[in-house]
């Protein structure tokens, strides 16, 4: 009897396994236990944070891995009314009037070549800006730029191993300084720019470091050296033909384009020694006049990605129109530079001999774009045309050892901590440009697709795929324990000039047409909750959330207006509202806060223009005393 049971079980498991294989063959299904490997129980936490760029959404999307759950969206270059980003006065000033950005490459701050979990940088290609997100509160803290002279910051913002710099380069060359010009004079008047943006090691504040005048190629992607190649940064380009129209044809004529190797320490030194010319406020170095800061290395067939391996010995470039990854030895490059064996120069930039620098060619497949790494000396290259990822060995015999199909048309890929000195080698996420039939149809605009692939076994295995917002480019994945986000803003550290911390300070002050409302929000009322203003007044609501409890944010929304924001525990935010016509305008808490959330509301009484109103209005002292007693704080 027992024997028969065992037999039945064995048959059942063989059937199950076969069914699993069949599903896999039917277009990229995952294997039988894939669900278990991505499952994170309710209430439990993922092992990784993944930060996906939001493309022309201008946001950053945060996912938990391996569950692939969307955790939150960080507004960066795009207003977000839910939290008041781009609506309150501070973030409005940070956005500088722009309401979109094209966010491509999230870059986590590093210490010693490893993610340190302090900041996330992300570029806005279209306006040549870089934003810094503080990973303490997942908020955008600085938007630097538009970077002067730079046009389309695509190769951006790739941090150096100790976050000394984040880099940016012009994808579209324009005259420098920009001025009226004839496009036919492209090769003469146009220039590319490579910029090193300095990062303050203490607070992450970005400032101008240096700029280098480059030939007017289209500068594309970048990566900083590490280990032996620390101190250098590498930038690929296409269009070394310097075509200015019909690039689709004309920019693919040369067999070889280049990557530029920049000695950024030498560049900074040259700026410090006063060898730069100031253009639009940026110190610009001309390589023809300041030798030794930048070299060009030939790369076959319109290169795209440039990636330095974890040991820092090799620079891997992918020719988009070639079926190979070209691997360069940093040591060989240095030797060639030392011997000064150049193959001519382009606009003052010396060109190294291809054969002097090349270490290997790895036949990965069609349309190679980007390469990431694991902890066992393997590289993973995305293949756009083949819709595959190729796994290959870094080092002799430079073999391709595995391939996996992805759905469809992969651009970037992201391995767990895969661009650091110590990748974890657990997962890679494929960021696909097309999703086609992967999800329920939502009409002609398909979502993008991201796919989680397990790297821990001998073969790559698809675990899960999930739709993403349009259109993520790159992503970075960091071990969750490296981040220590805080949950409230300590009220005693709130140094906002318009903050109020005691009920007694709640008041309304008028000066001419300007009205400042110093308001507190606490479960579950605003104080003051009656505001009297005149028609035509500019009213500034400075709302301080006095809560010091996790997850108790208050909203502040005004009827018939564009005004809404969220104020988090211990935070102060300012919102401008114009009293346009006489009447009553209610306001309310727009973010659910407690059982009496519905009662958290107030009224603005707008009187006809020129009515006389006291210059200081204070709430009823009895009420103030009551609130003070309830809070127990002095």
């Amino acid at each position, binding site marked *: 009897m027992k024997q028969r049971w065992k037999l039945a079980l064995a048959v059942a498991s063989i059937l199950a396994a076969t069914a699993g294989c069949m599903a896999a063959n039917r277009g990229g299904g995952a294997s039988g236990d894939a669900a278990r490997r991505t499952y994170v129980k309710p209430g439990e936490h993922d092992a990784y944070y993944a930060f996906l760029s939001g493309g022309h959404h201008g946001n950053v999307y945060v996912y938990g891995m391996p569950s692939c759950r969307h955790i939150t969206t960080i507004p960066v270059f795009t207003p977000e009314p839910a939290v008041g980003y781009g609506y309150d006065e501070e973030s409005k000033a940070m956005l500088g009037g722009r309401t979109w950005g094209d966010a491509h490459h999230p870059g986590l701050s590093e210490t010693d070549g490893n993610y340190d979990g302090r900041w996330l940088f992300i570029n806005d290609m279209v306006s040549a800006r870089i934003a810094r997100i503080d990973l303490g509160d997942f908020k955008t803290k600085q938007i630097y730029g538009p970077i002067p002279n730079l046009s389309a910051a695509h190769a951006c913002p790739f941090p150096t191993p100790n976050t000394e710099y984040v880099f940016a380069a012009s994808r579209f060359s324009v005259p420098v300084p920009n001025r009226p010009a004839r496009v036919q004079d492209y090769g003469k008047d146009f220039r590319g720019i490579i910029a090193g943006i300095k990062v303050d090691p203490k607070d992450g504040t970005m400032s101008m470091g240096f700029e280098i005048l480059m030939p007017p190629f289209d500068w594309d992607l970048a990566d900083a050296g590490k280990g032996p190649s620390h101190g250098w940064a590498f930038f690929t380009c296409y269009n070394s033909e310097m075509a200015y129209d019909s690039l689709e044809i004309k920019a693919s004529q040369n067999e070889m384009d280049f990557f530029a190797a920049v000695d950024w320490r030498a560049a900074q030194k040259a700026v410090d020694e006063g060898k730069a010319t100031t253009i639009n406020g940026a110190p610009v170095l001309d390589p023809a006049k300041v030798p030794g800061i930048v070299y060009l290395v030939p790369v076959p067939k319109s290169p795209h990605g440039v990636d330095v391996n974890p040991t820092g010995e090799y620079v891997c470039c992918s020719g988009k129109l070639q079926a190979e990854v070209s691997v360069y030895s940093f040591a060989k490059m240095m030797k060639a530079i030392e011997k000064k064996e150049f193959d001519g120069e382009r606009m003052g930039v010396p060109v190294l001999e291809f054969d002097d620098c090349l270490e290997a060619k790895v036949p990965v497949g069609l349309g190679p774009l980007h390469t990431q790494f694991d902890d066992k000396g393997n590289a993973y290259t995305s293949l756009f045309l083949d819709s595959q990822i190729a796994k290959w060995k870094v080092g002799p015999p430079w073999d391709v050892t595995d391939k996996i199909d992805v759905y469809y048309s992969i651009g970037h890929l992201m391995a767990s901590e895969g661009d650091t000195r110590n990748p974890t080698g657990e997962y890679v996420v494929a960021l696909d440009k097309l999703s086609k039939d992967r999800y329920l149809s939502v009409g002609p605009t398909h979502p993008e697709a991201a796919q989680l692939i397990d790297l821990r076994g001998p073969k790559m295995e698809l675990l899960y795929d999930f739709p993403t917002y349009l259109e993520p480019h790159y992503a970075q994945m960091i071990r969750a324990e490296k981040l220590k986000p805080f949950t409230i803003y300590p009220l005693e550290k709130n140094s906002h000039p318009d903050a109020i911390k005691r009920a007694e300070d709640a008041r309304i002050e008028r000066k001419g047409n300007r009205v400042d409302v110093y308001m507190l929000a*606490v*479960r579950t009322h605003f104080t003051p909750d009656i505001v009297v203003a005149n028609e035509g007044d500019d009213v500034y609501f400075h709302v301080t959330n006095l*809560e*010091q*409890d996790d997850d108790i944010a208050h909203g502040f929304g005004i009827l018939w207006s564009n005004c809404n924001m969220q104020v988090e525990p211990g935070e102060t935010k300012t919102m401008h509202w114009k009293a346009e016509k006489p009447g009553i305008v209610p306001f309310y808490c727009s973010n659910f806060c*407690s*059982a*009496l959330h519905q009662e958290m509301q107030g009224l603005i009484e707008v009187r006809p223009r020129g009515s006389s109103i006291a210059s200081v209005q204070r709430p009823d002292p009895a009420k103030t005393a009551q609130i003070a*007693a*309830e*809070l*127990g*704080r002095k």
Partner: protein
Amino acid sequence: MNEYLTGKFRPTERRYIFLAALVLLPVFFFPVLHIWEMRMWAPQYREGLTLRIYTNEIRGDVDKINTLNHYVGMKALRNEDFREFRFLPQALTGFGVLALLAGLFNRRWLAVLGWLAFTAFAVVMFKDYATWLYKYGHELDPRAAIKLEAFTPPFIGYNRMANFKVLSMPGPGTVLLGIAWLLGPLTVWFERRAARSAGRSSRRQ
């Protein structure tokens, strides 16, 4: 009895008296140990909120609890409302000093006096604490949004208040105070045992 009180301790028992003084130290001189603790759980506070009462102040999630208490009209907990905090450390210091003196001068009457005063003080303080609990649960603001029937938070043990489960228990400070207190009767017991065995052995000789 009189004879006992005017007598002196043997070296072993004298050490217990010093120990009693020493044990009190972290409770009053460096208030690192709390004397009472209240923990509260609600569906959205599964991790729990904690109040710890030290001899000189209340610590823990005081602000959070005050914000929640205002719904039911309970008064905010404020250190300055408790005059106890202004004399509790000093009083305990006094008892420690008494024990120390009793040990130093080796006077039984001093130790007994200290112990009796300490006992009386403890009874008064427990009563005082119970009164506070009663007051907080009964003096509710009639205008509060949520009207609760008057209640008394638990002195020791579990209780339910609205959506909160409350556990109240003595802290390590009180345990130490208890040990210091117990050292009194223990000393007497040890002395008597020693006296008995001495009597037995002398009889045997």
